[in-house]
């Protein structure tokens, strides 16, 4: 059976690549601290010695569009190209390429469907920065096969928050039941409070530091009950109009498990939004 080598939840900040690679006058003042934090975070994955990566993210109206919008979609392809013209244009992200773990994709789809999740699938998926950002920060070699899983956190109507948690719990069980003797890291990215295209965007901090503080506490302590008690599809508009990205953090809390404290927690207060990094080493999984 597969081993869950690590569970990792992170923000995905498309500006990291440019900030970390810029030099001289172009290098922002926060870049060095950011790179130091990412380097430390990266070590938490390296240490887990994974063979395969499951990557949870959200398409930002690239391949998935309102004429045909899945709520949860699993990539099942031998390869994935990555990043899109408008991400290169706005964020300077490079074109990327990944090998797919197609047999694990098939297992996730079959087991997920049998567990009551009517998962959509894609046999040709060009993935975007919700998946490539954690590869850039955590595994820049891009040398491991992946299973991308997309959630809709973007185009209402969305599933209820508890559904993201339940899917996370199911993914954990499904990956653990994969009959291959391989080490799998499950990595998911979302947002804390965030405003995009609204009056609170690009402020000196995230739009709602109080929400961010509570959210980091929920994640770090694995307090799914409290998160579900305070978060609803309606309430998530208040901390910022793109804060529904927090639902992917809730999914990752489901993967990590109720009451499971994160083994590694770090944050970075940036302009526009707070960065947050969490790693869990499930029992029996640590390298």
């Amino acid at each position, binding site marked *: 059976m597969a081993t869950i080598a690590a569970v990792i939840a992170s923000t995905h900040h498309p500006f990291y690549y440019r900030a970390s690679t810029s030099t001289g006058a172009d290098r922002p003042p926060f870049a060095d601290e950011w790179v130091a934090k990412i380097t430390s975070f990266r070590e938490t994955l390296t240490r887990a010695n994974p063979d395969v990566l499951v990557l949870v993210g959200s398409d930002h109206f*690239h391949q998935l569009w309102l004429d045909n919008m899945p709520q949860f979609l699993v990539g099942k392809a031998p390869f994935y190209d990555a990043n899109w013209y*408008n991400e290169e244009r706005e964020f300077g992200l490079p074109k990327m390429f990944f090998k797919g773990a197609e047999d694990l994709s098939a297992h996730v789809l079959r087991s997920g469907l049998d567990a009551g999740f009517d998962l959509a699938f894609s046999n040709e998926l060009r993935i975007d920065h919700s998946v490539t950002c954690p590869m850039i920060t955590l595994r820049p070699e891009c040398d491991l096969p992946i299973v991308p899983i997309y959630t809709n956190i973007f185009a209402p109507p969305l599933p209820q928050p508890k559904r993201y948690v339940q899917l996370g719990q199911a993914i954990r069980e499904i990956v653990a039941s994969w009959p291959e003797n391989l080490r799998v890291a499950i990595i998911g990215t979302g947002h804390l409070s965030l405003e995009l295209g*609204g009056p609170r965007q690009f402020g000196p901090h995230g739009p709602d530091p109080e929400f961010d503080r509570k959210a980091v506490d929920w994640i770090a302590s694995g307090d799914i009950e409290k998160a579900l008690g305070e978060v609803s599809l309606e309430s998530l*508009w*208040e901390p910022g109009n*793109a804060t529904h990205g927090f639902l992917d953090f809730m999914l990752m809390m489901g993967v990590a498990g109720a009451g499971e404290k994160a083994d590694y927690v770090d944050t970075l207060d940036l302009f526009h939004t707070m960065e947050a990094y969490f790693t869990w080493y499930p029992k029996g999984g640590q390298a």
Partner: protein
Amino acid sequence: MSKYLLNKFLYTVDRDPELVERYREDPKGTVEWWEAERANVILNVLTGEKSSWLKLDDVEREALATHDYPKLFELGAHPFLTLTLFIAMFERDHAEPLGFQLEYARRLGHFELPYPDIST
């Protein structure tokens, strides 16, 4: 009112480098051409089976034709689509980093919660 069609305009222009420039230089002409030629195109269909019913209303058409992004926000266009396309068109006109993004926020400063509904 068609939030979906506003979004379809923003989405299809944003992903086409030539259309981004055309919309920047000639917003009114681009919107008129797009509504006549592209509004009813189903995106992955190449053989002429189109929709027959999609049409902007006068307020929507005017908002797009005048680059009026505060109005697009008020009409419930998806803020991510509007922001991404307008950064592509106008960030270059601002010398300061994030100059356009901060102006954008200021111009939306009169909106309070709850924001306009973006459901489609």
